[in-house]
């Protein structure tokens, strides 16, 4: 637990001082929204409500890939990753600390993206803000847990920036499906749908537990 708090504190302080990761994620996320906005012919905007949930999650997913790639790049400088791997505790706690730091940063980016998205597409998220945050948070938990695990793998392969999405995206489909579905129902009716939320919870739990256990072997040499 000491390790968990230490790693979380260290990642957040580092991020606060450099701010490079959050800024890169945010700019990338906003650009994705912009690109998506222009990937639709002007006339088709009548059905924004239908495509909005999907577009929002595309922006979340791609910006999280950018951020996760940075999450371990900072550990490579001065071989700090070896310093972490030397810690005499269960390495799962290192994973948990880094994953929670990633989750907090991603949540901030999600919030800013949603605001920007709402303005650009003229959607008022305020009536469902709290419930939307819950759905976004549940999706982000899954994204950050497998994302952190795979970032630790990708960073020690060749073509690291390319490797992460190749590993991550195929396994994210169930999260995306459930999150998009939950978001769509929420925006349409203002009610949280049971099914997708339950599947998100199950997937989050499975991902978090398996990542916690297997992280030990990822840090080994």
């Amino acid at each position, binding site marked *: 637990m000491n390790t968990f708090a230490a790693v979380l504190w260290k990642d957040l302080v580092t991020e606060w001082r450099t701010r490079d990761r959050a800024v890169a994620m945010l700019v990338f996320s906003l650009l994705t929204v912009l690109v998506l906005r222009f990937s639709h012919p002007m006339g088709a905007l009548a059905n924004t409500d239908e495509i909005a949930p999907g577009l929002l999650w595309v922006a979340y997913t791609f910006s999280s890939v950018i951020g996760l790639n940075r999450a371990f790049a900072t550990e490579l400088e001065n071989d700090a990753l070896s310093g972490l791997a030397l810690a*005499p505790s269960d390495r799962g706690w290192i994973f948990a600390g880094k994953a929670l730091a990633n989750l907090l940063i991603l949540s901030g980016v999600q919030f800013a993206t949603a605001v920007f998205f709402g303005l650009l597409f003229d959607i008022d998220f305020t009536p469902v803000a709290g419930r939307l945050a819950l759905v976004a948070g549940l999706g982000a938990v899954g994204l950050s847990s497998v994302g952190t695990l795979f970032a630790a793998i990708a960073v020690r392969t060749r073509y690291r920036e390319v490797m992460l999405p190749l590993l991550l995206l195929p396994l994210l489909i169930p999260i995306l499906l459930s999150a998009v579905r939950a978001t769509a129902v929420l925006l349409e009716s203002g009610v949280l749908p049971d099914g997708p939320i339950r599947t998100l919870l199950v997937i989050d739990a499975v991902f978090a537990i398996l990542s916690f256990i297997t992280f030990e072997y990822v840090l080994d040499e």
Partner: protein
Amino acid sequence: MSSDSLAIFARGIEKRFGHVAALRGIDLELPFGRSLGILGPNGAGKSTLVRILAGLSRPTAGQLRIAGEEKDRRRVRGRVGLLSHATLLYPALSARENLRFTARLYGVEDAQSRIDTLLEELALTAAADRRVDTLSRGMAQRVAIARALLHQPPLLLLDEPFTGLDVRSAEELEVRIRAVRDAGRSVVLVSHDIERICACADRVLVISQGRVVHTSENAALDPAQLRAVYDRAAEASA
């Protein structure tokens, strides 16, 4: 001697990276309170051996016991302090913050005063609150030394610790290495610097192509003779 009273007990340590054999069967015994120097040309397997002793890298084959601990890899890691080529420090954190972070990883008791003492001993007090990326190479190296000593490990592993240090800091490090040894703990020292190794080590191994090719005991440590062995090993591996 029972292997429990040894800081390092290693038998037949091998490490392969695919088709490359980095270590081909290393036997090593180091009692507490002794220091061991490891010499060898580039690519001899010195750093691989240090990373295995530190618990960072798993040997492909062989038996390894660190301070009596073999099975529980977490406890092995806790008994080792490592100073490697890289400083293992976070550039965006200050020297003190880096040490505080390390203290929490190792669960060091009374961390505050321990950190202050080390910073003072290593002449870092003035620079303690500066970010590591603003420190000179020599200062960062001294912070890295403090990092390795922080949790008072029974086994201290030093991989090229003199790089980046000026003459005075290097001499101080020599004194410190001897002090750690005299306090009943053990030191493994990897270096190219034969003179410094002879000054700090009770025993010297020469490694070449993943094997121990020469051992000198403290009584007979002779830099000139070691130089000859080293040159032969370097030639053989070239």
